[in-house]
């Protein structure tokens, strides 16, 4: 008699998680997981940052700490120090009191809050028809985040040039020029996911010029600050440049990768407004959205990051840990490219070292990807994206040989 949910169809699993599952179930001892974007050591193990272990001990030993609710917008010392990481300590916008932040559940949560706010308040009260542009390709969850926030028109902007294996700048600028005014653009601050291809400084300046002239909204996604070059400030160049150009903007920050705090869901939506009055009103409306979604954010991860960022020796140690991770990735890039060249694998492989961050768009096509998975037990995304962190000194020869064999035998 009871109303049943009989009409619930089976949903297709999220690709990146299915890949990890299939990898787990594979019995081949030589298997390699180049799927999900989490850092691995040269032993192929997850890495809890040494500074994180230190700060965890500090937290455990501090009996004055409890598990009370954080404020709706989160831990204040986390929000402000996190925004400083993105914008720079001496950011004029911060000095002008027009920067605020919302602590969120990871980078995803920050994108979600920003999207929900924009839909309600950006350009009039109902932005369901306002176009949201995401790069082609982009992180697969971008589409869903904005669509679920109510945006009916989520479109791609040209970004990746598959033929030349680099940035399609003309296409990108062209889409900026032809986008309806007030369109929202999701920009990857650095270490573009999945292509690893970032605009140069001059290219960013060109993008900014068009966006300013055509009144397009800047929404940065910054999930890999520190991971691209190994230097936090260098990786924040684009975000900071846009601030100097006077944009009001959002920057969704994730501390999943650069702090290795994946499962603590540590994120920050940094808001740059025209002035403190606008900022105040924006934050008050953000509170309303937070309240009907998760009420207030989780405290553990934010506490950890706040203590680290606000304690000079710990901050220095963290930067060092970040550099360790970035350097290992750079080493694997160099090694892989060298080995492919030595094998004389057909094609050019410069993109492996030119691309930046955790990911590389190998250029392998879906058939080749399938071959890699089925015949070699090397797991990568159908797009040809590999996670460089999955490479180690122990498996890199096997991976290089496999790529070689695949490219030679499968077209």
């Amino acid at each position: 008699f009871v109303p049943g949910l009989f009409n619930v169809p089976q949903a297709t699993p999220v690709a990146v998680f299915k890949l990890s599952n299939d990898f787990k179930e594979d019995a081949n001892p030589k298997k390699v997981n180049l799927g999900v974007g989490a850092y691995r050591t040269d032993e192929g193990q997850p890495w809890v940052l040494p500074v994180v272990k230190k700060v965890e001990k500090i937290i455990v030993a501090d009996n004055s700490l409890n598990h009370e609710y954080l404020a709706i917008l989160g831990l204040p010392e986390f929000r402000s120090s996190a925004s400083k990481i993105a914008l720079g300590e001496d950011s004029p916008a911060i000095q002008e009191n027009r920067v605020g932040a919302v602590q969120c559940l990871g980078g995803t949560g920050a994108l979600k809050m920003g999207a929900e706010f924009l839909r309600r308040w950006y350009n009039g009260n109902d932005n369901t028809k306002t176009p949201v542009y995401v790069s082609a390709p982009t992180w697969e969850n971008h589409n869903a985040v904005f669509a679920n926030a109510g945006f009916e028109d989520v479109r791609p902007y040209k970004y990746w040039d598959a033929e030349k294996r680099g940035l399609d700048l003309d296409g990108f600028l062209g889409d900026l020029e032809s986008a309806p005014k007030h369109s929202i653009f999701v920009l990857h601050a650095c270490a573009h996911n999945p292509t690893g291809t970032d605009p140069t400084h001059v290219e960013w300046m060109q993008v900014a010029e068009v966006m300013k002239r055509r009144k397009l909204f800047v929404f940065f996604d910054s999930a890999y600050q520190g991971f691209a070059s190994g230097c936090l400030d260098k990786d924040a160049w684009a975000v900071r440049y846009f601030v100097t150009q006077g944009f009001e903007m959002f920057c969704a920050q994730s501390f999943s990768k650069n702090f290795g705090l994946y499962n603590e869901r540590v994120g920050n939506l940094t808001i740059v407004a025209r002035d403190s009055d606008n900022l105040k009103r924006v934050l008050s409306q953000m509170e309303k959205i937070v309240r009907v979604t998760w009420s207030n954010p989780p405290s553990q991860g934010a506490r950890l990051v706040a203590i680290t960022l606000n304690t000079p020796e710990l901050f220095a140690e963290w930067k060092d840990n970040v550099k360790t991770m970035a350097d290992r990735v750079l080493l694997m890039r160099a090694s892989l490219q060298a080995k492919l060249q030595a094998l004389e694998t057909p094609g050019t492989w410069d993109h492996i070292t030119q691309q930046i961050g955790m990911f590389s768009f190998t250029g392998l096509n879906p058939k080749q990807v399938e071959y890699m998975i089925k015949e070699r037990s090397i797991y990568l995304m159908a797009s040809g994206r590999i996670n460089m962190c999955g490479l180690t000194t122990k498996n890199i020869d096997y991976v290089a040989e496999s790529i070689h064999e695949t490219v030679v035998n499968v077209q």
Partner: protein
Amino acid sequence: LSPNLDQILLSAKASDYLIGSWWSEVQMGPPDPILGVSEAYKRDTNPKKMNLGVGAYRDDQGKPYVLSCVRKAEAQIAAKKLDKEYLAIGGLGDFTKACAKLALGDNNEVIKSGRNITVQTISGTGSLRIGANFLSRFHTEARDVYLPKPSWGNHTPIFRDAGMQLKAYTYYDPKTCGFDFQGALNDISKIPEKSIIMLHACAHNPTGVDPRPEQWKEIANLVKKRNLLVFFDMAYQGFASGDIDRDAWAVRYFIEQGHNIVLSQSFAKNMGLYGERVGGFTVVCKDAEEAKRVESQLKILIRPIYSNPPMNGARIAATILNTPDLYKEWLGEVHGMANRIITMRELLVANLKKEGSTQNWQHVIDQIGMFCFTGLKPEQVARLTKEFSVYMTKDGRISMAGVTSGNVGYLAQGIHAVTK
């Protein structure tokens, strides 16, 4: 060719470029009716001030209470040196299994047959939101959610934001400060079929008024006749009577009677894990196959909100629930918290009598859980806040958890002063 950023920063003030703002039309949002109370309290300089707003437990010194079993669990977890890899979208398996068992009982047929899906959520709010989103998307037969009158203030905006429509059924009787059983039955009998009805499993928020078991039985029967979808909100399991199983009785009874309910659980209060955001959302399905389909859709809903849930609190809760001596200790501590509240209720009434109040305060003792619906009117509440620095929500709700043996006398003074 790379421009010198320092030069740019030095030479141009960013606000030179700022013409207008995107946000000039953004209105100032009103303060949250519940959380806003704490903020007003913080600003008050009166040394006798009392925060009886938000439902967070306090010990008899008025201090936040970190449960001993929580500290032990944390120490155990720290010693394990676990990694920080992403949880699955649906959360920590050890937690979700234990969460379902806690609500439904160890030997529940639903769990044995695998026909429930339980996902980890961002505490109670996150659970309600996922539930609201799920029903909005898949329960296409009806858009209406019936809340008891009154209900937790955040229920309405959550469901509304998810695209549902809110209606109400009679629940609280202001004349008796108790349950309007007949009124509830009358209203429920008129609810259109397949609508969603929200029931507070125990320790009703804000009134503290719970149906008695015989009354629950009649409600369950009527709800079955009306063919309604039951959404249980259980945020206080253990806190109402001090007994975990007793507080889950209604939930378990409904399931026994064949209702395939949806259920939100929170561990904010009963484990004191407020800021760690620990909760669960359960859908009781017709069979394991349906549960798999529902699970796949819940994941699709969760991923674009926050991808996967936070580990820390769930790991603590799982450790407690799955470690026999920690579980035993926890049951004792929950019992202790509930008892302190019951004692405060008795003391408040005793003190009101001592002050010379001639009003009937029996409801303060009869009501159950963290909250007490005093019966104070908004003007009286305003006076209590203004003249005595006693902070509470304007519906007259006080959090008994904020009352201590040290301040109960002062509270009685204030309440008597505004009601005599």
